[in-house]
């Protein structure tokens, strides 16, 4: 019974995270200005990381955790570089 509850909650959580990914992707596509698109990208990678964590719980392997950690690292660097680009017009000066 509790195993069924866990598997259904995994499916529900993955559906919710997929919907959140869709929201962030549509803000990234139709954001009126550049900073809206960058906020959409930030939300997108965090939601993708949460989705990878739920996939890791579902499959019972710790491989997904490392992918989630790499996504968190690369996403932070990407968002900071894009914010720097919006501020100054170039990333490395």
């Amino acid at each position, binding site marked *: *019974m*509790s*195993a*069924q*509850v*866990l*598997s*259904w*909650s*995994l499916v*529900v*959580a*993955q559906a*919710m*995270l997929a*919907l*959140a*990914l869709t*929201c*962030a992707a*549509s*803000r990234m596509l139709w954001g009126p*200005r*550049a*900073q*809206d698109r*960058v*906020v*959409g990208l*930030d*939300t997108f990678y*965090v*939601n993708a*990381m*949460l989705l990878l*964590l*739920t996939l*890791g*719980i*579902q*499959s*019972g392997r*710790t491989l997904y*955790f490392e992918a*989630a*950690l790499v996504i*968190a*690292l690369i996403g*932070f660097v990407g*968002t*900071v570089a894009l*914010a*720097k680009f*919006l*501020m100054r017009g170039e990333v490395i000066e």
Partner: protein
Amino acid sequence: MMPGMELPAWAALLTAVLLVLGAGLALTGSLGLLRLGSFYERVHAPTLGTTLGTAFVSSASAICFSVLQTRPVLHEILILVFITVTTPVTLMLLVRAALFRDRAEATSMMPGGTQSRGVRTHRPPDP
């Protein structure tokens, strides 16, 4: 293969509740990002998902793997700490860039419009 088969009932239920709560918070934040009106309102909606959502989902993962392997598996704390530390940094950089761009263009999309204090800082005070 489902790990829920070997999990005891309390751990499975706790993991399920934490997962649904975290995913619901992330969904709420992303809906706020989609629905709110201006950029300065939109920029703080996803932080709901990045702080509490990440905390709930990573603690669900930590509980699940700790019970499965019968030893403390705490490497999800890494993700939690990293996301919690970096989210304010990225959003502050982004909002400063957006303020800079709005001031450079002098649009009325800023909070308070062109009458806000940010634009008037370089003007001499009225007599």
